[in-house]
């Protein structure tokens, strides 16, 4: 069966973009992707947009129609999908399925979120609705608190230390120095991370992804059309999605994410690859403990050894399994609905050899894990050239 190609990628620079609104940043990312791809507006036959909560963050819903409208794309189907923090990955997967089914040929895929139009407290409230609002958020469990409970349990079961918790942040900030689209293009020393303010013990501010405005875009098409537009297409070799209980307290274990384990296994099988074949990873690090857990769940490290693997440098650029070369959610920024698309943008750049100073030499296969909530949704994509 024919594969699905990614022929164009784009983003806006992530950050707190006070002077821009949701439609501005979405247009920027979309146009960047379209120009990068070589398609013209008339070649597109559909738009999919991933967004978590524009209705609460900005007051605007109906984002599919809005995206088609602002781009002047006119009379074409435009879909909007939501899966909390995995909304971007869900948009990529929707387009993948739509093209694979034969219903669509060339699609624009977008992800966006404008988070800084509400205050910090309201942003926090809005993020917590990705968990089980009535039985977690309502009782005072903030989103950082849920991840903090995972962290504390991981520390107890496996001896993960506060130093380990700081390492994903240090690595991801170091990577983001070379990503011109990242929110924080600066390194952060370990001591600063370890002494940053507490959000929910044991998690600190610098263990957590920031509030970010941002949008990312892809142009995807049928494999047989790819070369017509692009000299450097990359291909989606696997797209898998799994679910788990909405509430964290309903999981058998809170130190692993079964949805990630299962979707990763299925994706590798679908692509007929082993983990060793993957050259570059984007793993969902909304909190540093998330990257530690995912490092284990995708198979880079044994269970409980995620912190040590990061300490040993295995997941740095130049290591055996580079993770979050873009800076990850922590340093690239985490505009919730845009993240899953931005992950694929980074993988495509890496495979094309366009990642400049953060380039992983000769990268041929990349894998992205995009999580919704505390792991209730996991979407995994494998991209190859």
């Amino acid at each position, binding site marked *: 069966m024919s594969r699905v190609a990614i022929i164009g990628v784009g983003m806006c620079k992530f950050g707190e973009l006070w002077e821009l609104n949701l439609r501005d940043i979405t247009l920027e990312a979309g146009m960047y992707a379209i120009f990068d791809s070589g398609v013209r507006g008339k070649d597109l036959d559909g738009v999919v947009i991933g967004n978590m909560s524009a209705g*609460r963050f900005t007051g605007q819903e109906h984002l599919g129609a809005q995206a088609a409208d602002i781009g002047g794309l006119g009379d074409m189907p435009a879909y909007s999908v939501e899966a909390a923090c995995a909304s971007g990955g869900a948009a990529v997967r929707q387009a993948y399925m739509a093209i694979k089914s034969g219903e669509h040929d060339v699609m624009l895929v977008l992800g966006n979120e404008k988070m800084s139009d509400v205050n910090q*407290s*309201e942003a*926090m*409230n809005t993020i*917590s*609705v990705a968990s089980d*609002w*009535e*039985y*977690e*958020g*309502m*009782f*005072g*469990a*903030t989103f*950082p*608190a*849920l991840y*903090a*409970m*995972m962290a*504390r*349990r991981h520390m*107890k079961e496996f001896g993960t230390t506060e130093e380990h918790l700081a390492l994903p942040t240090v690595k991801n900030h170091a990577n983001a120095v070379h990503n011109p689209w990242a929110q924080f293009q600066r390194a952060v020393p370990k001591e600063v991370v370890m002494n940053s*303010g*507490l*959000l*929910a*013990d*044991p*998690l600190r501010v610098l263990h957590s992804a920031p509030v970010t405005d941002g949008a990312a875009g892809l142009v995807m098409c049928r494999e047989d059309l790819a070369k017509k537009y692009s000299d450097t297409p990359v291909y989606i070799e696997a797209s898998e999605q799994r679910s788990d209980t909405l*509430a*964290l*307290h*309903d999981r058998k274990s*809170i130190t692993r994410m079964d949805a990630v384990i299962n979707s990763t296994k299925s994706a590798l099988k679908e692509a007929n690859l082993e983990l060793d074949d993957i050259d570059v990873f984007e793993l969902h690090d909304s909190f540093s403990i998330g990257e530690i857990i995912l490092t284990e769940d995708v198979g880079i490290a044994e269970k409980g050894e995620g912190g040590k693997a990061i300490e040993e440098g295995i997941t740095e650029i130049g290591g055996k399994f580079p993770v979050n070369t873009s800076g990850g959610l922590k340093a690239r920024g985490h505009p919730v609905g845009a993240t899953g698309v931005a992950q694929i943008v980074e993988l495509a750049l890496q495979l094309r050899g366009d990642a400049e100073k953060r380039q992983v030499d000769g990268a041929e296969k990349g894998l992205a894990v995009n999580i919704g909530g505390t792991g209730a949704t996991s979407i995994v994509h494998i991209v190859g050239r």
Partner: protein
Amino acid sequence: MAEQGVAQVWRRIRTIYNVLGNKCNTCGKHYFPPRPVCPKCRRKGQLEDYQFKGLGKIYSFAIVRQAPEDFQRQIPYIIAQVELDEGTRLTAQIVNVNPEDVNIGMRVRACFRKIKAFGSSGVIVYGYKFEPTMKVTGHDE
């Protein structure tokens, strides 16, 4: 905001005032909050109300230092996953103990408390929090 609806709280009063869940008579598993479908047995499941004893131990916890408006007056507060004796876990605040004295495995029991108020003139939500068990109440320490 949608999540501050009066009916949304009112219709759950029985559940959150009493820690009232349910139990599947086919597989014996207990659920809190009550589940409409037993995920294990699905159509073969037989669910009936179950009043939890309200005793358990702390499975994991966090000390919340930054919270949304409704909880800001309570900072810092302890949020935990409590593993009830029936095997079910739930998320609740731990009270009547200093944050530095809490640990995983600590015995706790349910108590009835004010959870939060919806703004300055909205509904007051009551429900369960948990506190360390004490000999004087007839529980093991």
